[in-house]
């Protein structure tokens, strides 16, 4: 009996201690915390992240801000895992094409609900890709078309067509330098296939009359032409680094930054990445060419900031976004990552009137985005496997893409 009483007292003491500790924690948590999943763009420095965090908390002492850096390749997994666990962050950078999936999950809220009208009105209309069903579900944080960067120490040639680019790549390739860069290891983005597919006049899906996506067209003549060309460059011409099959985009580009490749199809971050790498060669920028007889159609990519519905501190999240979109912070962010500004006020600033931004603005005129559809992550994976099979010679480009199109259509219920 005495033993039971002792255990009872012990349990009571433990309960009491837990309650006291929990209450103390709650008092600490009374100040709302805004957690931001922060994509690690090339060029974006830790100093900037820390300064932004400190400046915001100094201006808003009633709000805690936790900016969490996340590598791009892990961002999607990180968000979905947090959503599945019921603990999403307040704010996150997302690829805009993911917005549709998050909307289907009822996981994000319209920006107008928490962000001030002044901030929204300052966004350039052409960059508002995340308008879905008439509502702005994300604010553009980085928007830019892809361009061709040319190392002028290796070649001065601005190719007018893909065929010209191949010829020049063949000419300049030697034992220790390469014509162009081609990532061959599967990663989150399918950018390189998209560059060649769009350059050949192709697309991922046929469009239905009602504007929805129909069957997959990755195996169209344009798709096959694009993949045959990629395989030719990589495995027959050998104008790309020999280890390309083991490198993702982020791992492949440093070969260009080190001055050992003539061409790279890349985003606006190229200039800041070159500066970070200490590159000393001259670079010029041009449009990603089309194949002969096909106009240049570069890929344009938009990333957005979204607010999650189940986040605890959405009002405070809106306050942070208003703060971040001031020129003092957003223009500096754009400059660091090298993307063209998305706000009207920043677009007027002198630092955005350079050859790189001229090339980006020109590319934006004819650029095409990713399909904005649910399940595109799976489509990406399937096409990547087809591209890999073609590179490895396990299937012809036609057979690999036929198989991919079948899988995609089956997955989407066609």
């Amino acid at each position, binding site marked *: 009996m005495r033993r039971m009483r002792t255990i009872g007292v012990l349990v009571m003491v433990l309960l009491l201690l837990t309650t006291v500790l929990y209450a103390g924690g709650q008092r600490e948590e009374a100040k709302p915390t805004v957690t931001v999943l922060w994509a690690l763009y090339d060029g974006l420095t830790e100093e900037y992240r820390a300064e932004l965090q400190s400046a915001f908390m100094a201006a808003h002492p009633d709000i805690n801000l936790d900016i969490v850096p996340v590598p791009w390749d892990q961002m999607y*997994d990180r968000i979905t895992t947090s959503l599945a666990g019921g603990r999403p962050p307040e704010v996150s950078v997302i690829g805009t094409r993911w917005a549709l999936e998050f909307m289907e999950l009822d996981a994000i809220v319209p920006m107008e609900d928490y962000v001030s009208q002044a901030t929204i009105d300052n966004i350039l209309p052409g960059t508002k890709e995340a308008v879905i069903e008439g509502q702005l579900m994300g604010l553009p944080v980085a928007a830019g078309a892809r361009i061709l960067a040319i190392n002028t120490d290796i070649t001065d040639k601005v190719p007018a067509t893909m065929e010209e680019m191949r010829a020049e790549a063949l000419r300049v390739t030697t034992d220790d330098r390469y014509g162009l860069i081609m990532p061959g290891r599967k990663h989150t983005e399918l950018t390189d296939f998209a560059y060649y597919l769009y350059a050949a006049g192709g697309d991922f899906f046929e469009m239905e009359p009602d504007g929805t996506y129909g069957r997959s067209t990755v195996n169209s003549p344009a798709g096959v032409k694009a993949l045959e060309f990629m395989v030719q460059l990589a495995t027959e011409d050998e104008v790309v680094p020999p280890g390309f099959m083991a490198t993702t985009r982020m791992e492949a580009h440093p070969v260009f930054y080190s001055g050992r490749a003539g061409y790279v199809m890349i985003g606006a971050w190229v200039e800041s990445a070159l500066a970070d790498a200490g590159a000393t060669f001259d670079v010029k920028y041009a449009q990603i060419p089309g194949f002969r007889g096909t106009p240049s159609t570069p890929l344009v990519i938009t990333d957005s900031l979204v607010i999650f519905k189940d986040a605890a501190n959405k009002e405070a999240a809106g306050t942070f976004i208003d703060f971040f979109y001031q020129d003092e912070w957003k223009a500096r962010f754009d400059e660091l990552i090298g993307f063209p500004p998305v706000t009207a006020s920043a677009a007027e600033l002198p630092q955005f009137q350079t050859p790189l931004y001229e090339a980006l603005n020109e590319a934006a005129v004819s650029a095409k985005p990713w399909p904005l559809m649910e399940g595109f992550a799976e489509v990406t994976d399937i096409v990547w496997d087809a591209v890999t099979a073609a590179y490895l010679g396990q299937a012809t480009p036609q057979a690999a893409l036929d198989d991919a199109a079948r899988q995609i259509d089956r997955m989407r219920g066609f």
Partner: protein
Amino acid sequence: MGASTTTLRSRYWNKEAQLAYLLMLPAVVLLVSLMVYPIAYVFMMSLYRTDRLGRLQEFAGMAAYLEVFSTRVFWETTVRTAVWTVLAVVVKAVLGMIIALVLNVEYTGRRTARMLFIIPWASSVPISAMLWKWVYDHEFGLLNQTLRATGIWTNPPVWLGAPTSAFISTIWVDIWVGVPFMALIFLAGMQAISRDLYESGEIDGANATQKFVNITIPGIRHLILIATMLSSLWTFNDFNTVFILTKGGPGTSTEILITAVYKHGFEWLRFSRAAVMAVVTFVILTMLSLFYARMFFRQERDL
């Protein structure tokens, strides 16, 4: 009836029993909430349609099983996982045994050698995998630089860029990380074998191989069973090595079941399919564990 109820009650609901239940309660709660519930939920997910967050929507019976079982990739992945596990565990056991034998011999520097052999196992697996990824780098990696510099292989392969070399490279990292565990277990077993047995063997004229086969192996067979079973379970589910080195590629040539579960679940948000693969993994590993348990207890009985 009344008497037997009273007897049962007095046996299972007396003060001693109540205290036992009270003390067991935290463990039971933890076990149910952290193990039983998640496993049950995965089984449910495999039988239901789920939304993109894995929440159960409507009962679908075996639909997800039929969908998964009808794909060629699933069967390829399952066979590859089995091959991966068997190969890795066998090599780990053989290498572990050799290392244990070396470390069991008296010589100067044995203590240092033991410490060095433990390093791969003491390091975190993700960090080891990242280090090996750099080692395998085609242009700048230590392996290819060494091969080129020494003239052993002037044009070495892209280790992680082709199916066969990627599979071998990935499995090697799993082996490298897992060997010290085997070696340590075997070494502990060897040191527990009485020296008298070896001396008797020597008097009877047994050579080194005969002593190894007739004294060492029988002396540590329990430990061989336990070590290979644990290693099989870990190797079968070695997500870190595969994910960090190749993410299952090129194509799906290094995909194993656990990375496929992750891909379907957390990259594509197809939780029913992921759950089916997780159930298959669970069933295979349970069968493996039962097989080992049976072997283990049979040995116990024979002793």
